[in-house]
């Protein structure tokens, strides 16, 4: 049983040498393993900032608050230590790393996270199986990390990494956007396989209820102006879908 807690988190985006802007204005959220929390909210409200700040992206700086994984302060760890502690972020815009082959990258990541190098044979079988499950052509293993991948291909590979790395907490930032209906199904199944263990807490950032038909959330949070503005059960997602975020956008603007 894992407890992931975000307490009073504030963070700035670093824009230039001197320039910064506060985006996260005190975020509180607790996710236990086995739970899935959907985060919905208007463009620019700070959802990706929350995800990146937790992962330790160099463009963001946390100014206040805590992020605890089973009581351990994640913010005191380096980016790679956070991942090895069990944190995973599927990015909205996965990064292309030219010249580094996907298979080499995945093996390095798996070795680092598991603490020992998997046997070559066993690993290539595991990789093949995981790729098959996400309908990824085996030829991708030889290509550069995300190099020239389409948007949808990148998203599939993020979930491939989720399945291989088996984190305690997975933050999925708009993994559903840019996917066609078939791909959405394949990717959702991947997420559900990871969830089926009951050992992962999922923070699912999305704009659409479409993915929530496949990946049922336990809680839904509305994110606006760098904060959790409202929380509820799965039914809140339907309210948001029909009514939009107007209520929350206005509320923030009048503050």
């Amino acid at each position: 049983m894992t407890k992931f807690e975000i307490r009073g988190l504030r963070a700035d985006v670093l824009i230039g040498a001197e320039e910064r802007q506060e985006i996260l204005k005190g975020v509180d959220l607790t996710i236990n393993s086995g739970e899935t929390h959907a985060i919905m909210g208007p463009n620019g409200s700070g959802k990706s900032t929350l995800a990146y700040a937790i992962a330790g992206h160099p463009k963001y700086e946390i100014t206040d608050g805590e992020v605890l994984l089973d009581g351990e302060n994640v913010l005191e760890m380096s980016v790679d230590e956070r991942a090895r502690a069990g944190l995973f972020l599927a990015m909205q815009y996965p990064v292309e790393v030219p010249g580094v082959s996907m298979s080499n990258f995945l093996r390095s990541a798996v070795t680092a996270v598991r603490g020992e190098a998997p046997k070559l044979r066993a690993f290539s079988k595991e990789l093949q199986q995981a790729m098959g499950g996400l309908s990824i052509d085996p030829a991708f293993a030889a290509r550069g990390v995300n190099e020239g991948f389409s948007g949808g291909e990148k998203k599939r590979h993020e979930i491939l990494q989720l399945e291989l790395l088996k984190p305690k907490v997975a933050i999925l930032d708009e993994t559903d956007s840019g996917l066609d209906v078939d791909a959405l199904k394949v990717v959702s199944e991947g997420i559900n396989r990871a969830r089926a263990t009951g050992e992962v807490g999922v923070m699912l950032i999305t704009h659409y209820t479409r993915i929530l038909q496949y990946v049922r959330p336990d809680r839904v949070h509305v994110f606006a102006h760098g904060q959790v503005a409202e929380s509820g059960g799965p039914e809140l997602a339907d309210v948001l879908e029909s009514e939009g975020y107007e209520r929350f956008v206005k509320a923030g603007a009048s503050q």
Partner: protein
Amino acid sequence: MASPNLGITEHSHGAGEIPISKLDTHGSFDVNDFPVPNGREEEWRFTPLRRLRGLHDGRDIADGVVKVDVQAPAEVSVETVARDDARLGTSFLPTDRVSALAYQAFTEATVVTVPADTTAAEPVFVRITGVRQGDAYGHVLVHVRRHAAATVVLEYSGTAVYADNVEFVVDDGARLDVVSLQDWERDAVQVSHQYTRVGRDARFRSFVVTLGGDLVRLSPKVGYTGPGGDAELHGLYFTGAGQHHEHRSLIDHNVSNTRSRVEYKGALSGEDAHAVWIGDVIIGEGTQGTDSYEHNRNLVLTDGTRVDSVPNLEIFTGEVEGAGHASASGRLDDIHLFYLQSRGIPADEARRLVIRGFFADLINRIEVPELRERIMAEVEEKLALHE
């Protein structure tokens, strides 16, 4: 993401934005036709003359000893010839003082000939080893005859103060792949010219890999003797603390319907590491259908390094198929590192992966497996020095 290397500022010019005042397209075998450089000349201004240890003024004591070993498959002829052999010096004119001096001073030359219609089954290795530090001069001629094909590896190691001229003559329909590996010991000095003539429908590919030495200045020059010729010049350098690596390519599209690609990539690490890349391309008067592109990319790994990267494109005709250049220098991209680290990969390993990736596609195109591994291993070794 549109740009693969986010941390790198890229500037790219259209054809002919930078006029070239003078390109050294004329030459001479007479040393006296070239004044002793003083360092202010365009072609010498990046080179620390003091560190040439006399190679440019022509002290010619010849107190160094350099050994040449050649390993070749049976179908390739290898000869050691005296300096008066009629085949030597017919494909080029020295374009600077050191080249002329080297041609005047060498005692023996190595001639490698691939007979017409013959494909060399194995690479030819020409190993040039400096065994006693001091100035020494050399000459190599590689002649690939009509419709023949070969891979030639030039391997420089040991220590010397060395100047040489290498002639690559690629006859009509022939193919020549060259790997030139500058793997000198740390105190070596080398000034080298590689003159290539590409025949009709012939193909020339070179991989210049410079890792060692105190100072290496290498000038690959390519001209065409018939239409349809294709030249690809790839380069890789890893310039460590105090090293000077200078590559000056010149492609002379003097014939119609010729193609060239120049792609040089380097990493710099450590105090006073200095890399210079000069890429000259001339598209000659009255020619048509030239297709040319050149590119230099530098990865700056530490403070205290210096890069000079100068593409020059000079066009004398309106009938160009394509011509362009780009030059970029920058640090390791911290977003690349972030992505790898966010998957648990430790920072130093992430750095290694990204740097290896930077060189990988170039190294992977070298079709001699043992060289690929050796070059990658040496790159890793140099990386380890600064971690």
